[in-house]
């Protein structure tokens, strides 16, 4: 071990355990605030998703109220899940990870509590704004100015907090997860403010708006959700298995190549649009270069779990996290292929793209966040999850639900895209091809809804500390006399 990692010989495992408990406890209020509001917005966002999906099957469903027309419900869904759920869940996870990786109790929690309040007011105002007709027709940035400003304040507070936490970290190695988290915390406020200024506050003109729109839309995934999701996987998979990451070298290479290539992405959303060809080509090349960080991550996660796949049976956290990590590879490889113009010509403007979006933000990111919540919440609340059965129901409902959704949207989207390219088929007929697939999509949405309700119940029961009293929750590390067989180290 290097000198920086060596512990003074006076530090005993008991002291390390106490220190870890102290760190976990210090994150309690902000983590529960962000997680609680995330789960609230998940339920609201799911409701909008169901409404939007039903409207695809029955276009006149609830169309007598302008508030509930498709053009408002659909962006309300996107923003509720992207900012209300995914971002807040990501921030909650990142706060806890930052404290653990800085090896110090969380400081300045008032900054974070204020951020959570600003955050929720922003999302609430934004959703109400969209529903009342105040939204903007800019995908991912539909929130009106008064809402996006609130979110920016929250992002700013969190970024300042992250820098302060990092400044006061205990000396030692900076684990790969921490690189990802710092990057996310610093890149996103810049991304969000630049895109909002150029599109909403001081709008640039004409086609350039599309370029800014998709630079933001794609990098919100790549420089915000992806780093947080990967940071979580890089911490939880080794930690749950008790096995260091397969190749740490590759993980560092993955981080820096992501930093180098990802921000070039985005313009490939505009293939065929009125844009300079070099702009789109640069993005297509960068999309393909993303194979480097994606493959390094895939190799690492797979090789770390390899030989221990039976662990998925006993660890709820690992089950969700590994599912998410596998879907990260799938979504990213799919994304790189979708950027290749000859394939994009089929998938553009079809439900295939919607399937890809759900594979990324749900099957990858959301599943990893569920896994993180199963690991983190018992430790910060000091109470075991009340029911293993609820966790299993949650997993199978959402795993089958999202699997089905991605498959039906992919197949339906391909048929739709091929029909759109066929001059013999009218546009109306190309829509008929999608009908059965969209019905199945609504069914998969119901499965996801059921899963989310199960999870919300589980979360509430945990916060109420129901179930048998366990002073030493069983999910916690200490083994209660059952020391796992040691690995060959």
């Amino acid at each position: 071990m290097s000198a920086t990692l060596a512990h003074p010989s006076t530090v005993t495992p008991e002291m390390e355990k106490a220190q870890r408990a102290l760190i976990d406890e210090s994150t309690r209020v902000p983590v529960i605030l962000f997680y609680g509001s995330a789960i609230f917005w998940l339920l609201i966002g799911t409701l909008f998703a169901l409404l939007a999906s039903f409207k695809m099957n029955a276009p006149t469903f609830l169309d007598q109220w302008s508030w509930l027309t498709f053009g408002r419900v659909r962006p309300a869904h996107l923003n509720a899940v992207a900012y209300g759920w995914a971002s807040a869940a990501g921030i909650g996870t990142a706060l806890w990870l930052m404290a653990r990786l800085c090896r110090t109790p969380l400081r300045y929690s008032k900054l974070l509590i204020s951020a959570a309040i600003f955050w929720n007011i922003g999302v609430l105002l934004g959703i109400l704004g969209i529903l009342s007709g105040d939204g903007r027709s800019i995908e991912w940035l539909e929130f009106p100015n008064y809402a996006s400003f609130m979110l920016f304040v929250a992002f700013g507070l969190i970024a300042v907090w992250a820098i302060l936490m990092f400044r006061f970290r205990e000396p030692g190695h900076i684990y790969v997860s921490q690189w990802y988290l710092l990057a996310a915390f610093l890149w996103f406020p810049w991304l969000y403010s630049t895109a909002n200024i150029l599109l909403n506050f001081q709008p640039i003109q004409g086609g350039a708006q599309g370029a800014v729109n998709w630079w933001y839309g794609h990098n919100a995934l790549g420089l915000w959700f992806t780093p947080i999701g990967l940071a979580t996987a890089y911490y939880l998979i080794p930690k749950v298995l008790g096995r260091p990451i397969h190749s740490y070298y590759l993980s560092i290479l993955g981080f820096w190549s992501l930093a180098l290539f990802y921000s070039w992405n985005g313009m490939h959303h505009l293939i065929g649009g009125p844009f300079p060809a070099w702009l789109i080509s640069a993005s297509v090349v960068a999309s393909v270069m993303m194979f480097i960080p994606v493959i390094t991550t895939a190799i690492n996660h797979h090789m770390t779990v390899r030989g221990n796949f039976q662990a998925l049976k006993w660890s709820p956290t690992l089950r969700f996290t590994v599912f998410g990590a596998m879907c990260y590879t799938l979504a990213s490889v799919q994304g790189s292929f979708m950027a290749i113009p000859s394939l994009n010509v089929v998938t553009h403007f079809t439900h295939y793209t919607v399937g890809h979006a759900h594979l990324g933000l749900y099957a990858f990111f959301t599943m990893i966040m569920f896994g993180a919540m199963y690991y983190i919440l018992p430790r910060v609340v000091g109470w075991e999850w009340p029911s293993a059965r609820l966790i299993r129901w949650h997993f199978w409902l959402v795993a089958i639900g999202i699997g089905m959704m991605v498959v039906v949207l992919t197949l339906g989207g391909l048929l739709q895209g091929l029909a759109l390219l066929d001059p013999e088929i009218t546009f109306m007929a190309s829509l008929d091809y999608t009908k059965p697939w969209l019905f199945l999509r609504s069914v998969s949405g119901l499965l996801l809804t059921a899963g989310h309700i199960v999870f919300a119940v589980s979360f509430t029961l945990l916060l109420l500390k129901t179930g048998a009293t366990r002073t030493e929750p069983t999910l916690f590390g200490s083994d209660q006399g059952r020391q796992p067989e040691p690995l060959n180290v």
Partner: protein
Amino acid sequence: MNTIVYILLAAGLVLFGGSTLAAFYWAAKSGQFRNLEAGSKSIFDGDEPVGTATDAFADKMADRPLRRGADSFRP
């Protein structure tokens, strides 16, 4: 007004791009890329050492021990 906004945006670009480069330079200089295998173990400690699994369903504790095999972790 427009000019001020563009100057601010350009400054932001330089600042954030520059901070990434500065972070990379600092990481290389301060030895973050040296002794990577030890770095990979920095999330473990004496209480939760390598080899200790830390999460399980409440009713699956008995199944928890990891398999010992040739394919498990190599230092």
